[in-house]
């Protein structure tokens, strides 16, 4: 196929001085049903830019783009950042749908896009990869989380019957599918339920949960929803425990004792070296809980700034082309990674090496305890 006339020129960005202000852009849902998630990421991105840019000797201006959870709007936004010659990297897009819709554009324009939360496996792996080589993510994908959760249920919890509930949006559907497939393959009885993303009363599903069910798997995006589900199970005297995905991993908001949660990281407060970061963030965001989706965004910024610095160094104080950032991303290693351990990318795909998932159980005192 040929290109349409009129736009044949390839976007070779002009060189930028690394002493001037460079821009990076966050693409996340900032309004609407998933607005909370984007705003968490925004607050951590802001904080990361503010504290880390000086350390890398960079002046960075952060742009925030609201995808409204609509891939089409994300595509428009991508054009905006492509057109802005000062933008040198993108944090996000947060959601897999948005990544799929924008990766081509961003990559062609030479923009690295590093997502803190897009977990659809097929973005980076498989025969029909949905994202370009310009896409990176700093957390493990659903292909690890789903089977991992399932394995835990089978091996540790010895489950016989599991109810899985998705919320009719890509993230929960993907995760529930992966988990259910694994459970089924191991002979566990599974029951699949599916509720609209707007539903907040689960009473009727709970009524339907058979009494001998061990686990209700709830890969929701919002912790309070998992909380409501767990409470309604108790209310109707069901003994099944809720098992939430990474989206629900917030000890302040989902903490019905006995429930399980899986996450791509241990709570960041588990790592002593995070103390200063956490204190600083809390100072900027008084009264807010740390959140689940924010800290990876901090990590994504860290990777991005690292890569920009490297590219600048190679260009002798100049960023010759935005592509240079893409080239450098995979080389980045971060010690004392905010999510624990050291961070580096896998050599084969644009995923983190040894991306792992952790499973916690809520304790009677409402804290999370690592159980797997």
């Amino acid at each position, binding site marked *: 196929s040929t290109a349409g006339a009129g736009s044949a020129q390839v976007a070779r960005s002009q060189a930028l001085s690394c002493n001037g202000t460079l821009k990076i852009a966050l693409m996340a849902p*900032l309004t609407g049903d998933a607005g*909370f998630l984007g705003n968490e990421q925004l607050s951590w991105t802001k904080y990361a830019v503010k504290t880390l840019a000086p350390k890398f000797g960079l002046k960075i201006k952060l742009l925030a783009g609201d995808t409204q959870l609509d891939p089409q709007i994300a595509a428009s936004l991508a054009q905006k950042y492509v057109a802005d010659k000062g933008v040198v990297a993108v944090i996000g897009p947060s959601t897999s749908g948005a990544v799929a819709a924008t990766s081509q554009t961003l990559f062609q324009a030479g923009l690295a896009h590093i997502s803190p939360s897009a977990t659809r496996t097929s973005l980076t792996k498989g025969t029909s990869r949905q994202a370009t080589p310009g896409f990176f993510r700093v957390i493990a994908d659903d292909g690890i989380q789903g089977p991992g959760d399932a394995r835990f249920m089978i091996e540790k919890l010895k489950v016989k019957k599991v109810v899985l509930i998705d919320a009719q949006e890509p993230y929960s559907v993907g995760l529930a599918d992966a988990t259910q497939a694994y459970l089924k393959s191991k002979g566990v009885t599974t029951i699949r339920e599916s509720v609209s993303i707007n539903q907040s009363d689960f009473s*009727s599903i709970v*009524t339907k949960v058979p009494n001998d069910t061990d686990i209700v798997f709830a890969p929701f995006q919002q912790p309070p929803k998992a909380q409501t589900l767990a*409470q309604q199970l108790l*209310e109707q005297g069901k003994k099944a425990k809720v098992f939430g995905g990474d989206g629900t991993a917030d000890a302040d908001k989902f903490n019905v004792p006995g429930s399980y949660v899986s996450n791509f990281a241990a709570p960041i407060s588990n790592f002593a070296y995070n103390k200063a970061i956490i204190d600083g963030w809390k100072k900027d965001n008084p009264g807010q809980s740390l959140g689940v989706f924010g800290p990876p965004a901090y990590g994504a910024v860290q990777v991005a700034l690292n890569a920009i610095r490297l590219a600048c160094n190679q260009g002798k104080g100049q960023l010759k082309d935005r592509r240079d950032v893409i080239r450098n991303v995979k080389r980045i290693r971060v010690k004392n990674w905010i999510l624990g351990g050291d961070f580096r990318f896998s050599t084969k795909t644009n995923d983190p090496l040894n991306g792992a998932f952790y499973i916690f159980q809520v304790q009677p005192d409402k804290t999370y305890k690592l159980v797997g």
Partner: protein
Amino acid sequence: MDNFIQFTVNALTLGSVYALIALGYSLVYGILKLLNFAHGDVFMVGAFIGFGVLQALGGAADPVISIWFVLVLVMLSAMAGCAILGVAIERFAYRPLRNAPRIAPLISALGVSFFLTYSMQLMFGSQQRDYNAFAMANGALFFKGFDIGSVRVPLLRIVIVVSAFVLMILLWLLVTKTRIGKAMRATSYDREAAAMMGIDIDRVIVFAFVLGSALAGAAGVMFALRAPASVTIGFVAGLKGFTAAVIGGIGSIPGAMAGGLILGFAESFTQGYISTRWSDLFVFLILIAFMLLRPQGLFGKADIKKV
């Protein structure tokens, strides 16, 4: 059988909240023929006011005074706050449009809805808030109650259903038995003619907004006692309320109650007995069929066809 009872209990809880919202729609629609799209957002603000008051009084787990008293305060302040909000909306966004084409206030209402949702997001962020009713009185709201067969009907659900019905009955008495109620009816049929009878239509309209918004505030609290609240809950609530109001026959008070309950039952039972995934499909198919058979709604009167 147990499941059936349980589904019924679920339906009643859902339905009474829908009905309260529907009433606000119906009241305003009855008088102004306006689909008040901002109504759902008033509901949302109600949930937030309740949250604020609850926190100010020490929170769900250790309130400064008896939790029952706190609950009453939460409810009353949400109702009062929403009433004020409703009056302000009417005064500034709708009243200047009294004589405009019908579609204009509709857009104004959308504007108000945007304004409220995002003002709340601006001020309070977009996280979900949980009243944590679970912790109130050591879980009594969830675990105490009475039993039907082996099904426990918890206190919280009883409180919600009963107070919703009490509010609705009060409203119904107000509208059918009082002079202002009659003025409301007349105003709804012909505003100009009502003014010619000496009815102060501004007051009548404000009154409708006060009632409707207060009920929305109450509904907001009831909702948030059982589910997390965020700035975006207004939309779905509004949609449900509107639907319930139309099913019942928009403008009719018993209609709004019936519509809310029908919707609650439809949701609960299709989820229970048919499929959770396709529940909405069936609910909407049922509703469409219903509308085609009885376009004026359950309690609505067919238009007078007189030429």
